[in-house]
């Protein structure tokens, strides 16, 4: 199913993408800013995400962000990744102007205050504890990315390297960050749902048209050097079983080779029929939850293979078995490849059942460089050949391309 969309720019550089879907009386505004944790100072990590919280604390002319939106029957949320920060709201389509009003005012200027900053610092610190520190193995990923990347800012997660960094953020930092990155010329607005192009053109001009273009704080990012030998690290914690986390370098999401790496991840870990589940969880019963993920990032990213070990199993036995599974990828045949492609194809169809999903996919695609990726992505997967998968398995899943974290009980 083709997703139709139109694109236009305002004079201040704001890019607007419109997707009409009149099946239900709902509209979505999705505003993506091209700033993420990659843009943070290494001594002030977690800042892009802390800033996301502050975006809900009132803007120059509107003291509360949430109240007026809820008053017209709307809902909203946001997320921060290493590359982008994405804000979205959905509301009954006849109330859409309220969305323009709210989003444009917080792009124009935030209502900064020390008190608001102090409170959100506390909230984010509780979030840090809830998600990463108060869970068994909760900080594994934080430690693993720090081992995997030596140089690139992807070496810290969006929540930040350390709670102390969040504590140190000042109001001056907040202001500099806002004016350096939150600008019409650093954002794309996607409007989707029960709307019309002409209506969106008029509302975008009315509410966003007078926001000045800003000088962006651009800075070159250090390139991650190629890894040439295996790295590992052992940590001890209050956990019931050993766990082994492995991370491999993969190409940027902007490259076609990324999609091959992602397909590898699906072969390894997407569902009951996947290799890790069949071999390590079922046949050899080495781990109840062996899994794999890939991160499609703007710069070269990562693929991880994680497992908590079953009682009595050693990391050595697990690693030996895992090496066997990875070698099996070379035996992958056309039938198995077509199967996983069939599954991915259906996943793309299901994703299109909500307006919000379509809006977010358009925004993410645009940030990668081409909004039409929402339509062309299935084709990219479809065209991946068997020998390309074999080749990628050999180069990506090589020991010298891997960092391993052993998480052991105290």
């Amino acid at each position, binding site marked *: 199913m083709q997703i139709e969309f139109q694109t236009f720019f305002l004079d201040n550089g704001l890019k607007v993408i419109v997707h009409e879907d009149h099946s239900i009386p709902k509209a979505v505004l999705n505003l993506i800013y091209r700033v993420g944790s990659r843009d943070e100072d290494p001594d002030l990590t977690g800042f892009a995400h802390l800033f996301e919280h502050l975006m809900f604390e009132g803007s120059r*002319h509107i003291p509360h962000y949430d109240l007026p939106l809820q008053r017209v029957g709307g809902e909203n949320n946001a997320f921060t990744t290493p590359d982008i920060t994405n804000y979205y709201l959905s509301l*009954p389509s006849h*109330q859409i102007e*309220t969305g323009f009003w709210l989003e444009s005012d917080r792009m124009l200027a935030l209502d900064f205050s020390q008190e608001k900053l102090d409170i959100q610092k506390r909230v984010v610190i509780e979030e840090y*504890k809830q998600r990463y520190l108060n869970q*068994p193995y909760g900080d594994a990923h934080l430690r693993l990315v720090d081992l995997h990347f030596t140089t690139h800012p992807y070496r810290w997660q969006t929540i930040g390297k350390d709670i102390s960094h969040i504590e140190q953020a000042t109001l001056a930092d907040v202001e500099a960050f806002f004016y350096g990155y939150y600008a019409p010329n650093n954002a794309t607005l996607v409007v989707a749902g029960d709307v019309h192009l002409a209506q969106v053109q008029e509302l975008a001009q009315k509410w966003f048209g007078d926001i000045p273009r800003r000088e962006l704080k651009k800075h070159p990012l250090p390139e991650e050097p190629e890894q040439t030998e295996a790295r590992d690290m052992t940590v001890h914690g209050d956990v019931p079983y050993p766990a082994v986390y492995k991370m491999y370098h993969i190409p940027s999401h902007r490259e076609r080779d990324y999609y091959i790496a992602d397909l590898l991840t699906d072969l390894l870990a997407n569902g009951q029929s996947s290799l890790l589940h069949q071999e390590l969880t079922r046949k050899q019963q080495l781990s109840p939850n062996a899994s794999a993920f890939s991160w499609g990032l703007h710069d070269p990213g990562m693929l991880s293979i994680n497992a908590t070990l079953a009682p009595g199993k050693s990391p050595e036995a697990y690693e030996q078995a895992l090496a066997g599974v990875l070698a099996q990828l070379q035996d992958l045949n056309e039938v198995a490849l077509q199967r996983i492609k069939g599954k991915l194809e259906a996943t793309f169809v299901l994703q299109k059942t909500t307006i919000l999903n379509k809006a977010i996919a358009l925004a993410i695609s645009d940030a990668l460089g081409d909004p039409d990726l929402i339509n062309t992505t299935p084709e990219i997967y479809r065209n991946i050949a068997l020998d390309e998968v074999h080749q990628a398995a050999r180069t990506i899943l090589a020991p010298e391309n891997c960092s391993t974290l052993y998480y052991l009980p105290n």
Partner: protein
Amino acid sequence: MAKVLDRRMAPPAGPLSYIPLPPYEVTRLSNGTPVYLLPYGQVEVVEVQAMYRAGRGYQDLIGQAGLTGEMLTEGTQSYDSLRLAQQLDGYGAWIHHEVGEESLAVKLATTTANLGHTLPLLQEVILVPTFPSEEFESLKQRKLQKIQVREEKTATLARKHFGYELFGPDHPYGSYLSQEALEAISRDHLIAYHQQRLQQMALTVVGRFDREVILDQLEELFGSLDRVEEEASISRAATARARGRQGRHYVEKAGMQASLRLGHLAMPRAHPDYYGMTIVNTILGGYFGSRLMKNIREEKGYTYGIYSGWIGNRYDGYFVVQSDVGNEYVPSAIAEVKAEMHKLMDEGVEEAELDLVRNYLQGRSVSQRETPFQMSDLLRFSLMHDIPFAELDRQYEVIREITPASVQELAARYLKPDDLLEVVVGQVAE
């Protein structure tokens, strides 16, 4: 020159309404199996659910219903678990089960184009599962370990103890799958459960489909079965007695945060004041703009999030407030929750705040009724809880008509801030 924009003024807002639940068609296969058909959505996908009066209210052992559901896809007469999963992958389809208090459902989600290929797989799974011993033992081991890891989390322990104290471990609404409960279940229990509880089904079809084609295929796959009339039985929840314990229940668990579960018993879903109380609850802690969130997150910064729920089970309902807070904030957070409950009871709500909640709840219906999968679940809920669509939509009448005076009256009558069960799992200094 256009006039200067006044950014302080909100754009004019129109009146709100909700999306009413659409009508569906009821028909029967030749053996009497009811089929409910609801065309919905623009994308070429469809969900078929086979549903049974089963679930946690209808089991002899804790975990029996859930494990039976999980084992349905672990092997059938024609497929072992791997071959079944591979078949589904190739067609881009999913078979999942869902176990509730009052029902067990097996769902097939598929693209419309592959419905004809995948429906026979659903038939295999629900009619002729083989419950292979080896797969069952392996599943059990995996689950045992997952329980052990999960019990390292304060939130899991808080949920478990809250259920035990409020309902009791033997009450279906308080049941928690512990390692001991899991150990006690054998393969025979699952086979028995399948034979006793998963025979008399209803079928729903929601999404994009051709009516004649799907009815023919359902008839072919399910229409000639002997329809076993199950013994009439009602949920154990109908006769179980909830403990309703009150007061502080503290469980020590080292860590940086404590998980709180505060609450008390409440009315069942069919009670005439149930919908009114869900609105009261929304004001208190049921949405991001709620009083609890404003006070405890946005003003104090004690937590990343705090929510309350007014849960209308079929038999015993309950009220619960849940949050993870820094250990040092526990006493203040509990005091603030009680203070917010008292405030709502003593001072009620201003028209403006109530109006906001009315609009929020009506607007949300649009997002809750967007996909065929959401509608499929709503239809199941309606059928299995014997609540017609019209009655589900009655909540919007209540939302439109409720007044500040009735909010306060309801709050004063049903909130019990001085008789709370307070489960705290964490490390709280004396």
